[in-house]
């Protein structure tokens, strides 16, 4: 309040524009000073990359540089649409994301509901400690853990735990990570194990806000705990569920580079290659299609931006604070 009233006090009339600016600066110099390092970083490292986007419309030659290279219009975008590997990566991305939403998202909600039902404080906090932990491990570490469990036996090694168990039961070992039909399943399940606990925190926050009197009166009316979970807890956290679902849907075209890059191999490209890994492979990861990869990135970014803006509109409709 005080700060605002100082702002409202205008300098005398005869003061010029420049002087008024100086007075304003003198008053708020510290705030502007604080914002400065971040502002510089943002302009250099975030907006600095934007000038490179013109590569999407150019034929890059290292000799001429980014500015000097000749314009070629929308050639690369046509190339992109006709590229079967791009179409495949696009389909894989969307399918994997649908799996993640259908199974992963539902799992998160139920995990939160179930953990909330644990009445013994000690058990609850131990369970929470365990399920949050995988989120903090990187996908490299996680890919290592998956390999330890699913590796195919070789001459110098035993193979993964799962294959050891299969073999001891008399079955044939399976090379899980090289089996195209299983790859999406592995992505979905590993994603659930890694992120389900952490994603459920949002719902715990919403559950903490439910008034205990609701449960008390329901108990008097003879409701059992299952009824309470579905008729009190679930409806009360539904707004949070809706927001999370919208945010999740807004990432429909986004792909988790870290996860896929650390788990895939040439054997599973048909079902596992996603947009981010494809864009990487054709450019820095061995290819030389710099312009094409920039063009793809531009289209994806624009598409993603539109979806997010629409999603944010929905979130605002839900009467909660949006992203912006």
């Amino acid at each position: 309040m005080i700060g605002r009233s100082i702002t409202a006090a205008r300098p005398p009339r005869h003061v010029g524009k420049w002087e008024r600016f100086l007075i304003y600066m003198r008053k708020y110099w510290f705030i502007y000073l604080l914002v400065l390092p971040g502002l510089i970083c943002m302009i250099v490292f975030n907006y600095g990359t934007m000038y490179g986007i013109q590569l999407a419309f150019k034929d890059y030659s290292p000799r001429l540089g980014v500015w000097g290279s000749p314009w070629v219009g929308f050639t690369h975008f046509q190339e992109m649409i006709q590229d079967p590997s791009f179409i495949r990566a696009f389909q894989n991305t969307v399918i994997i994301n649908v799996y993640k939403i259908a199974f992963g998202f539902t799992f998160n909600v139920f995990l939160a509901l179930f953990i909330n039902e644990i009445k013994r404080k000690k058990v609850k906090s131990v369970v929470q400690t365990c399920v949050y932990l995988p989120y903090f491990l990187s996908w490299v570490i996680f890919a290592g853990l998956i390999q330890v469990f699913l590796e195919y036996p070789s001459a110098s090694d035993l193979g993964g735990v799962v294959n050891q168990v299969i073999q001891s039961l008399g079955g044939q070992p399976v090379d899980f990570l090289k089996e195209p039909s299983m790859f999406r399943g592995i992505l979905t399940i590993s994603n659930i194990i890694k992120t389900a606990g952490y994603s459920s925190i949002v719902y715990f926050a919403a559950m903490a806000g439910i008034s205990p009197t609701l449960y008390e009166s329901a108990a008097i009316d003879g409701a059992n705990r299952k009824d309470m979970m579905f008729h009190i807890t679930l409806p009360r956290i539904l707004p949070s569920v809706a927001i999370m679902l919208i945010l999740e849907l807004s990432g429909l075209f986004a792909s988790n580079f870290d996860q896929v890059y650390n788990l895939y191999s040439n054997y599973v490209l048909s079902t596992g290659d996603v947009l981010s890994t494809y864009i990487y492979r054709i450019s820095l990861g061995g290819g030389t299609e710099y312009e094409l990869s920039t063009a793809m990135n531009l289209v994806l970014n624009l598409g993603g931006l539109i979806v997010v803006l629409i999603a944010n509109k929905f979130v605002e409709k839900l009467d909660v604070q949006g992203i912006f």
Partner: protein
Amino acid sequence: MKRNRSKKPSIGRRTMLGRLGFNFYDVFIYGFCILFALVCVYPMWYVFVASVTPYEEYIKGGLMLWPRGGVDFQYYIAIFSTKSFLNSLWISVSKTVLATVLSVLVTSTMAYAVSKTHVRGMKVINALVVFNLFFTGGLIPQYMLYQDLGLLRSYWVMVIPGALNITYFVIMRNYFTYSVPKELEEAARLDGCTDVGLFFRIVMPVSKAMVAAVTLFIAVINWNDYYNYMMFIGNKTELQPFAWILRRMLVDQSMMNTVRNGAASLGLQTPPPMALRMATIICAMVPILCVYPFLQKYFTSGITLGAVKE
């Protein structure tokens, strides 16, 4: 007993378990949650146990719950006698510290300034920052930029470009806007406190816990990061971070052979590749496990919910 099982245990009715203080509903809930918790942590425990199990026991395989036949650190000796491991640990530690300190300083000061929306320009700056969450130039433009700035193939590409962390900018901005009591600032102003004093003597001490938590989060991100090395440094092995070593242990046969031959020349049993991978995984995990208790203390209290706070 048999009759009891064939009867469908229903909620409210007192069954065998009911007499012990449980009912079917509880068993299901507890069973599900404990099972999932085990799925989350058992792989890590298994990897730890297997990596300290002596070779003779290790090759018998199976689900290990406890180190059988004593504890043996031969795989750790094998990886740490490889020169590139120690070097990469040093790179990882130093870049994590530098990048984290820089990032927290830049991000927190900017977040505080932008939370003062009554100051002209802050709303615009906020919109400009948040826009970057959703729109970036992409890999190649980034590469070209770093090339022009001379950051390519340099140590600093792992430190400087991440200085402004936009996700944590949003979280910290929301914290400064909603969670620092307005009354506190007003009272300080009435006592004649300037902006500078307000920031250093009121806001920062009040937000200590939040800043500490964000620091740990950013430190974990930096420790886990190998992307900048992979994209912008490439094959300069003297700069590789530990996360990249781990990645190479998982996929790079020549790296694996170097370590195995090194172990053999030390007079150790030539280690199985998987055992060496497990030891590397444990080394990459230890720092995260060390800070995890502190992380958990803070993120459950809601700081990470900034973006979807009601």
